[in-house]
């Protein structure tokens, strides 16, 4: 008996395509040059790059989402002097390329900071001299900008009766936010958040342009060292596809855990 998850594959054309795919993969494995993999795996470079990509993603996701909640809240319920700057911030972040933002912070702040002796002599200077703080900062600010807009829509989408009911129970404004508004807004935003997380993963390789050693930079370095053009890129694409798959699975699990019926 064929298991249920394999049944969609049991069509003639799909089996033929699968066979062709297997042949292509086999040919790639056999004819292309993979001799560099053990060298760089043993030197730990590949794992180091993978780890950098993942912690950049997780860190910018968590802090960015935290900021986005406040950006969304300011736009959905704040007074105009909070709503306007929040809206402007989101528009600027969403309207300009991430690469430009990254270079502006890295080269701009990087040339500004050394002019102040108190920064140069401070405890933080050894950290500020490296590239990763700027990468993490840019990715966080960018994610906050994009998600601020998503959270605004999600906050506005929560049925009004829920909030009125909470108020009738005598909850304070902060308790309403914590118990009623935020959980329902997050639940509404969850499918969008999954897609945006994949987009954020796909934004991380840009940090290689300011010399952060993420997995993209590692593949770049291998290509420069060995003069092999395609193979490191193919492996890189597979790695990103695998991470994308994991993100999709995590969010599918999250969505299934939450009750899906929204009034």
């Amino acid at each position: 008996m064929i298991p249920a998850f394999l049944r969609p594959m049991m069509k003639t054309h799909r089996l033929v395509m699968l066979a062709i795919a297997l042949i292509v993969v086999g040919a790639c494995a056999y004819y292309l040059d993979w001799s560099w993999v053990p060298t760089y795996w043993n030197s730990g470079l590949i794992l180091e790059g993978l780890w950098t990509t993942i912690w950049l993603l997780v860190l910018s996701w968590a802090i960015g989402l935290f900021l986005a909640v406040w950006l969304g809240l300011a736009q959905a319920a704040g007074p105009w002097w909070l709503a306007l700057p929040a809206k402007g911030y989101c528009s600027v972040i969403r309207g300009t390329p991430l690469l430009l933002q990254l270079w502006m912070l890295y080269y701009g702040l990087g040339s500004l900071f050394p002019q102040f002796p108190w920064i140069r002599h401070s405890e933080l200077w050894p950290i500020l001299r490296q590239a990763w703080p700027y990468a993490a900062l840019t990715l966080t600010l960018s994610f906050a900008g994009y998600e601020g807009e998503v959270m605004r829509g999600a906050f506005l989408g929560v049925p009004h009766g829920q909030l009125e009911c909470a108020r009738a129970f005598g909850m304070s404004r902060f308790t309403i936010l914590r118990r009623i508004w935020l959980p329902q807004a997050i639940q509404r935003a969850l499918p969008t958040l999954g897609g945006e997380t994949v987009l954020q993963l796909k934004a991380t390789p840009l940090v290689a342009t300011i010399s952060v050693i993420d997995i993209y930079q590692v593949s770049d370095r291998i290509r420069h060292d060995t003069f092999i053009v395609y193979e490191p890129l193919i492996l890189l694409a597979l790695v990103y596809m695998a991470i994308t798959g994991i993100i999709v699975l995590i969010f599918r699990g999250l969505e299934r855990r939450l009750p899906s019926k929204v009034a």
Partner: protein
Amino acid sequence: MLDAITTLFAPGHALGLLALSPPGWGGTLVTGLIATMEIAFGAYAVGLAIGICGAFGKLYGGEVTRDLFALYTTVVRAVPELVEILFLYYAVPSIVNEILLNAGFGRIAMPPLLVGTIVLGVVLGAYMTEVLRGAILAVPHGQIEAARAYGMSSLLLARRITFPQMMSNAIPGMANLWLNCTKDTALLAVIGFSELTLNTKQAAGTTKAYFLFFVAAMVIYMCISMISGRFFAVLERWARRGQRKIERGGI
């Protein structure tokens, strides 16, 4: 007034570095802007063509066509644009030269502008396929069935029934893709194509006025996005002509 503006851009004044003529770097930015817009328009056209083929292929094509397009959209959307651009930047010219050599012609050196356009277009096509597919699916089924009952050929049906009705659903997504397209041209800076972002970096690096030039480039990108936002709003109003308006509080 005009005098005040001229002095502002004179060498040594606040915005002197942004002047258009050589002591200033404004001309470099404008050259970059033109290259950016050329690539963006070209890539959008290529992406739209692929998207239309993909959407109809995915909905009405045979089983093999459908699976192949599904593979294309899934893979392209799962891998970072930067990696795809790098990959295709080497692959497209070598494939073209391979075909030319086999056909008995000599090698050609493809201009980077053309390669960049094709590469971004292929990436954009995957997203466009999904946007257009969703828009076609939102056309009421009865409309298409009625057109079939009238005996329209599938091309006539697409032109008269599907296209006009899917446009209003497709335009918001297409507007987003256009903005993504203009922003993705910045990725070509990584492979050394001199468009707006790379020219900005060069100007900033030479003059050491980093914030001035990067803020100027940001203003230019914001202008592009605001102007095109206005344009797409007009386009959407045109596409929605004749539709019933959703009143405030109608939900």
